[in-house]
């Protein structure tokens, strides 16, 4: 078999375990695909050909002797470049960490290695996960495979674009305010932002510690469910990680939606949303109705306050988390500094992009004396109110259906002048992070230019199986998740 593009990741592993293809064949296919297309796409910061092929041989032997037989054994995967991988550069797409090589694996990487997956490399992202387009990357922006003049989304732009382009079957991203869901929506792939605490953050370079979550990106709900089953679960090295969470993979892929109650927030379908995105969401709602779910509109209060509250909290936490980058123990160190203070200031000023510097300064502002109560304390209380608003909504509904972004992917460079315009585009995603809820993004349409539109299914805490099952039901009767950009069509690779 020479082209694995139409196989799901789970099917690919099945064929590997049955001996019809080898781990090496699968790994080489995706490495070759990356080498062919990535000059145009710039999804990868680091491609690890030699290491991946060595690992493929080891995993092949363990599959043959029966010591590796999991759902995704032998499947190649690429990792967002803010997740620590031992011996492989982890740069966060920043000059500050361009030479940083971790001496340990993140908790999720230990699990992926334990499953027998093959890491092909590290993926491009917005610097330190701060951005919605991958344009703040020190290495240059990732491109949208559907239109190379448009953004891939962010901050997990490389993670989403690589799956959309067919150069990797699965990837890991991270989501603090929409950074898995929005690039998935822009690139026409599926991705899960898990419940806060469902996945260990040990080894994830911290942006906002009360909001960050690592999650899977793939071509379907089934593939995302499989990868989530590998990475979720307890880790004593992350004190916020749930000790008790058990994910029901079989339930997640059952495709059950009949009798479920789905709510659509009215506030999300007014205001800045484009007509094409609105139409796609309403069409998705009709599909769920035809499948036997009850779908109705409801009012979700405080929607307009989520984005300012999010940016206050996220910047505050980022200013604290990024204080460690001082040039002392690791990271970029400026040269010819006369004293320690000058070394701190020059290293940070030269090592960070303007967006990162902006967020650090904003974070210090909202935490500083005289402004703490008015901004940070206020935002924390608004976070509580937003969480309660969602909890009240879930007394009436099982799942909330919402758009991911008000528009489809915009042109590169279009939103760099005014940071608030970029921040406002996160309007539908940030509230989910504030409330700590799970949300699954999946493609549900295209605009007139052929750019993908995404929906998100938001669930109750620890109900990933329910939202994935609903998404599976949707994908069993629609074809949006099977679409491929022309760059990835058969014969192009």
């Amino acid at each position, binding site marked *: 078999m020479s082209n694995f593009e139409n196989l799901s990741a789970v099917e690919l592993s099945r064929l590997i375990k049955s001996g019809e293809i080898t781990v090496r064949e699968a790994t080489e296919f995706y490495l070759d695909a990356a080498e062919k297309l990535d000059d145009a796409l710039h999804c990868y910061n680091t491609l690890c050909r030699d290491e991946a092929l060595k690992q493929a041989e080891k995993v092949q032997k363990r599959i043959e002797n029966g010591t590796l037989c999991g759902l995704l054994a032998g499947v190649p995967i690429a990792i967002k470049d803010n997740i620590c991988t031992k011996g492989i550069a982890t740069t966060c797409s920043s000059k500050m960490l361009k030479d940083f090589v971790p001496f340990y694996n993140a908790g999720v990487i230990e699990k992926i290695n334990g499953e027998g997956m093959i890491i092909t490399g590290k993926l491009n992202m917005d610097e330190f996960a701060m951005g919605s387009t991958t344009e703040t990357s020190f290495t240059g922006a990732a491109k949208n495979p559907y239109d190379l003049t448009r953004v891939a989304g962010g901050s997990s732009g490389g993670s989403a674009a690589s799956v959309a382009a067919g150069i990797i079957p699965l990837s890991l991203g991270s989501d603090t305010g929409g950074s898995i869901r929005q690039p998935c929506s822009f690139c026409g792939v599926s991705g899960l932002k898990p419940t806060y605490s469902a996945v260990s953050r040990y080894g994830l370079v911290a942006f906002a510690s009360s909001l960050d979550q690592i999650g899977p990106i793939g071509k379907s709900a089934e593939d995302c469910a499989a990868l989530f089953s590998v990475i979720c679960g307890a880790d004593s090295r992350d004190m916020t990680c749930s000790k008790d969470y058990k994910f029901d993979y079989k339930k997640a892929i059952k495709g059950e939606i009949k009798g479920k109650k789905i709510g659509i927030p009215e506030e999300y379908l007014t205001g800045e949303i484009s007509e094409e995105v609105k139409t796609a969401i309403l069409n998705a709602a009709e599909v769920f109705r035809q499948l036997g779910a009850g779908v109705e509109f409801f009012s979700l209060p405080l929607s307009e306050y989520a984005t300012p509250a999010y940016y206050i909290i996220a910047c505050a936490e980022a200013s604290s988390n990024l204080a460690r980058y001082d040039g002392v123990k690791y990271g970029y160190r400026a040269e010819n500094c006369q004293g320690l203070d000058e070394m701190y200031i020059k290293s940070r000023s030269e090592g960070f992009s303007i967006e990162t510097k902006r967020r650090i*300064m904003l974070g210090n502002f909202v935490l500083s004396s005289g402004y703490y109560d008015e901004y940070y304390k206020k935002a924390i209380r608004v976070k*509580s109110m937003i969480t309660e608003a969602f909890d009240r909504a879930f007394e009436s509904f099982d799942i909330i259906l919402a758009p991911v972004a008000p528009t489809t992917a915009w042109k590169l460079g279009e939103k760099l002048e005014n940071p608030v315009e970029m921040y406002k585009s996160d309007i539908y995603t940030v509230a989910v992070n504030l409330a700590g809820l799970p949300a699954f993004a999946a493609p549900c349409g295209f605009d007139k230019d052929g750019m993908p539109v995404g929906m998100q299914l938001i669930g109750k805490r620890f109900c990933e199986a329910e939202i994935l099952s609903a998404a599976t039901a949707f994908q069993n009767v629609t074809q949006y998740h099977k679409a491929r950009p022309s760059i990835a069509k058969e014969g192009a690779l």
Partner: protein
Amino acid sequence: MKTGAQLIKELENLSKIELSEEEKQTAQKDLQTVLDFMDKLSELDTDGVGQDSAFVSGIEVLREDTAVSAENPQAVLKNAKDIKNGCLSVPKTVE
């Protein structure tokens, strides 16, 4: 509220960052735009609301106080720019 330039200088100091002249001009303009955006929250009455911590409740933070040896202490230093006698070397710290 301090003037834009004064505030930027203070935030530079807190952040241990020095902006270029061009970045300072942009930062002053952007800071006001972002603060206007964040000021939206002042519309809400939040007196007596919820907790004053960003973290969800119910997280158990305590563990047994057991010592664990690091696998490879030298590995920690591999990313440092300048090592002397097993120590991190930095510019002069005191005058």
